[in-house]
């Protein structure tokens, strides 16, 4: 008898193939993946142009930061975070909507393989949705996210790891509590927006909120972005802290997912998934 491998790229490939079939089956959905990031980019880009261009406008550090693209840069990075998590969660929701969970969990597919396939799809969805928008940002507003080079690589790594941690935690809740938890997929990340200081420095927050903000990896990215744009310096300390927090949060998310999966088996809810 052939021994089953404990982790199989073939099975990850099978799941990625399944999600890519879904993606290709609906061009309106593919366009929608670009639509919201584009709307956001245009809105904040024009606001930035207005703030810079109005008579007697911004001065000092605000002018420097916004003139360098801190608003449009932040909105693009925010969309990487938001769409990264939603891309992960959307793949999982597809299984619940299709009542396919029992088929998957009684197949040889391991939970790790399932999770890796959702991470892969999250990246593919980002490529489809975000790459064109970042290129349009160069054309419309002269802001080139790619020109941030190594800094962009670090920002992306921190944001996507956090996005996957949130996605994994929500997936566990969906397994355990079913589609009653679906709203979390669309809303949970928005709690991060004010606390993660996407558009303003942490110093703006009340003193008692600041420790909460610094406990979130995205805060280090948005502070780091402002540092790169204003001081032209990549703060390695911020990036290291962001990645370290990510590692802790991802481990916690994985533990929660595993516990919620076991709890779903205890409660018999894996057989009752779907609408």
């Amino acid at each position: 008898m052939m021994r089953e491998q404990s982790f199989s790229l073939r099975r990850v490939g099978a799941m990625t193939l399944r999600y890519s079939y879904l993606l290709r089956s609906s061009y309106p959905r593919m366009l929608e993946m670009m639509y919201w990031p584009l709307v956001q980019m245009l809105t904040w880009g024009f606001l930035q142009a207005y703030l810079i261009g109005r008579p007697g406008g911004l001065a000092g550090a605000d002018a420097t930061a916004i003139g360098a693209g801190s608003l449009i840069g932040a909105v693009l990075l925010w969309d990487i975070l938001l769409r990264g998590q939603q891309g992960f969660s959307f793949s999982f929701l597809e299984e619940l909507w299709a009542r396919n969970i029992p088929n998957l969990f009684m197949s040889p597919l391991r939970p790790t393989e399932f999770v890796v396939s959702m991470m892969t799809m999250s990246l593919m969805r980002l490529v489809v949705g975000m790459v064109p928008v970042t290129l349009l940002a160069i054309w419309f507003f002269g802001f080139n996210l790619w020109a941030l080079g190594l800094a962009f690589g670090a920002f992306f790594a921190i944001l996507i790891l956090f996005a996957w941690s949130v996605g994994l935690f929500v997936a566990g809740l969906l397994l355990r509590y079913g589609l009653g938890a679906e709203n979390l997929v669309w809303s949970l990340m928005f709690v991060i927006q004010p606390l993660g200081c996407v558009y303003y420095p942490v110093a703006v927050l009340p003193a008692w909120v600041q420790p909460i903000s610094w406990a979130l990896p995205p805060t280090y990215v948005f502070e780091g972005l402002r540092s790169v744009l204003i001081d032209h310096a990549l703060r390695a300390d911020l990036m290291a802290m962001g990645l370290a927090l990510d590692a802790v949060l991802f481990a916690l998310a994985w533990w929660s997912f595993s516990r919620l999966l076991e709890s779903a088996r205890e409660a018999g809810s894996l057989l009752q998934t779907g609408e």
Partner: protein
Amino acid sequence: MASSTPALRVTGLSKSYGATVAVHPSSFALPAGSVTGLLGGNGAGKTTTIGMIMGLIAPTAGSIEIFGRDFLKDRYSALGRMNFESPYVDMPHRLTVRQNLAVFARLYGVADVEAKIAGLAESLALTEFLDRPSGKLSAGQKTRVALAKALINDPELLLLDEPTASLDPDTADWVRSRLEDHRLRRNCTILLASHNMAEVERLCDRVLMLKAGRLVDDAAPAELLARYGRTNLEEVFLDVARGRAGAAS
């Protein structure tokens, strides 16, 4: 050498949800190549029992051995050799039949995916539907697709939860014939939960009767008819469901 290890052995298997006992401690073993019916009314514990054997529901107590190995400790050594079908579990509607089968073939490590799909499509009369979205099929066609998925890895243990529910008699009979074919070709062990007594009489060489989560009888269909003094399993089922004298008398 023929193996005497049962394909499936459950010992003292039970499931409780809080104070509610869904399945009382039950023990049975299925020899390789046998077809066993799991009979009982609504809420008798059939789906819970099958769910535990599939690894989707954690038992409260007891053990499950599949192909001689402890399934609760090492489910993945068995899952590639099993499969299941139920009308209450679906496949992604927007994928075509071919795409759905291709995904499951790869999950189960089927060697020649295209040839396997073509063979199954031919034997289950699905060839003309292969490139149609699964959501646009009739109930009978969907059942055939679900059966194709259940047979994609040539399972040695097949779990079926009311496989012919909501099918017309002709389609249901056709599905039973395909299951008999598969059993004979592959020496497959089948555990079949059903409300359809004619189906159980035709397919099963043994019947486990469940009532309110308890295994109340376990015998070949002919033995059950003799024991309850009945001419068909439907009457036996009613005797058990209504608590009339039978096995105990």
